[in-house]
């Protein structure tokens, strides 16, 4: 299978007040086109740092990240990030305005085309009745839907999702996860998804990379045979397998005296 993204021996460290802090060390993995790839680990394991490096917001201190064989050096609309924070929508633009804006600046589309394309994706996330609303009039779940619609409309090579549902209430999160699966079925977009929730990882990911903390290193890459399934024997088995891998680290970590 041809590779879309390859992360090769990436180490990311940055200076802090108490010296150089290494967030991620010697991490390698690759993602095939159309794959849903999960970075899973406890907080502080460097999974968001890794995603930011793929997005181009951070430069690896060592190693390289390549998309389609080209080295990633800066952020760009070929890798669109969906953040956890609700303030990722531009508050001065309507829902439609938010979806259209990057089409005009990043894809150089004409007004009419951008509008047409924007409405199509707003419809896809079921918000056509709200296309003229401003972000502050929407609920958290609706804001994340707009962010997803906007990202899909840009038509990137990859979606980078940084715990996008972590700030939602349990019911909404549940529904958004199902919707994301549906959207993926329709679009087959390659997704790199960061989460600390084992259940979310097992529901959404074709493969799950488990990061061990302090500094973040690849513990194991689990091939998920229960993708799209929730609370059945197979998914519970994989969840337990992952939990065992993560708990092992919790113990190791507490022996070190935490982070």
């Amino acid at each position, binding site marked *: 299978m041809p590779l879309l993204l390859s992360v090769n021996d990436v180490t990311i460290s940055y200076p802090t007040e108490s010296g150089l802090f290494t967030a991620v060390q010697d991490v390698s993995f690759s993602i095939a086109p159309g794959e849903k790839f999960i970075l899973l680990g406890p907080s502080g394991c460097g999974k968001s740092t890794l995603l930011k490096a793929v997005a181009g917001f951070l430069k690896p201190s060592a190693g390289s990240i390549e998309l389609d064989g080209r080295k990633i050096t800066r952020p*760009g609309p070929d890798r669109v990030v969906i953040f956890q924070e609700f*303030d990722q929508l*531009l*508050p*001065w633009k309507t829902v439609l305005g938010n979806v259209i804006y*990057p089409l005009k*600046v990043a894809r150089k589309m004409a007004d009419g085309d951008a509008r047409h394309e924007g409405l199509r994706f707003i419809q896809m996330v079921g918000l056509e009745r709200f296309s003229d609303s*401003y972000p*502050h009039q929407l609920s958290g779940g609706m804001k994340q839907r707009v962010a997803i619609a906007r990202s899909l409309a840009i038509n990137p090579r990859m979606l980078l999702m940084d715990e996008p549902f972590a700030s939602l209430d349990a019911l909404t999160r549940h529904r958004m996860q199902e919707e994301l699966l549906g959207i993926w079925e329709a679009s087959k977009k390659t997704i790199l998804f960061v989460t600390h929730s084992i259940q979310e990882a097992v529901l959404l990911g074709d493969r799950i990379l488990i990061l061990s903390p302090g500094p973040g290193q690849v513990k194991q890459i689990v091939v998920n045979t229960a993708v799209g399934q929730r609370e059945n024997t197979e998914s519970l088995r994989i969840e337990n397998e992952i939990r065992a891998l993560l708990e092992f680290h919790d113990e190791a970590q507490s022996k070190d005296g935490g982070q």
Partner: protein
Amino acid sequence: MKNIFRHPVVRKGCIVLTLFILWEALTRFFELNPLLFPPATQVISSFISSTINGELPGYAWQSLKVLLTGMAIGALVALFLTTLAVSTRIGAEILETLTAMFNPLPAIALLPLALLWFGLGVNSLIFVIIHSVLWPMSLNTYTGFVTVPPTLKSVGQNFGLSGWRLVAGILLPAAFPYILSGFKIGWAFAWRTIIAAELVFGVAARQGGLGWFIYLHRFELNTDLVFAGLLTVILIGLVVENLLFKWIERKTVLRWGMSAAQ
């Protein structure tokens, strides 16, 4: 009928009307010398005739012209200072120090110095206005820029924006609530300053603004016109602060659900 009085604007209008009636009644009852305290009706009729013959609007326009010039230059310098402040640490320190020093200094106190440097004329007034608007506008714009959520900046970069396109597309609108409140404070300072400065400004009569109009008519003992001048100062202040800025807020920050923590 009763419902009309629920509206605050109507009630406030009634208060103003009562004040005018009271003013009229007291001046007539005590037979005050109209050279010292003219009755309300006389002031209003002078106000109207002076408005119609173009004298008052001419002077008011002169004040506004100087004020807008000063504000425009002040805004540009403020933009330059804040750009410097957000891009370099020394720039931020320069801005913080200058603002801390000059913000407490009333602009009008610089007028004698301005007269010395720029002579009797519009330039001295503009200098004073720039000083009165520059510091509050810089401070607010700077706060606006540094409080832009980092997520929004990342989103802009993610769209491939950088440099000026990022500033114009993301940072300026995100900081807009603060920029607007900077303009509001700047206007309030500038309006009070220009009127005060023009009072001191005796000689260049043909260039005078509203302050000069007031001073001139006091000199000629046209006290009704002095009152009419004051009335105009109040009216323009009210219109700009309560109609113009409110309208801009309704069209922008209120509609967007954004507000500056002021």
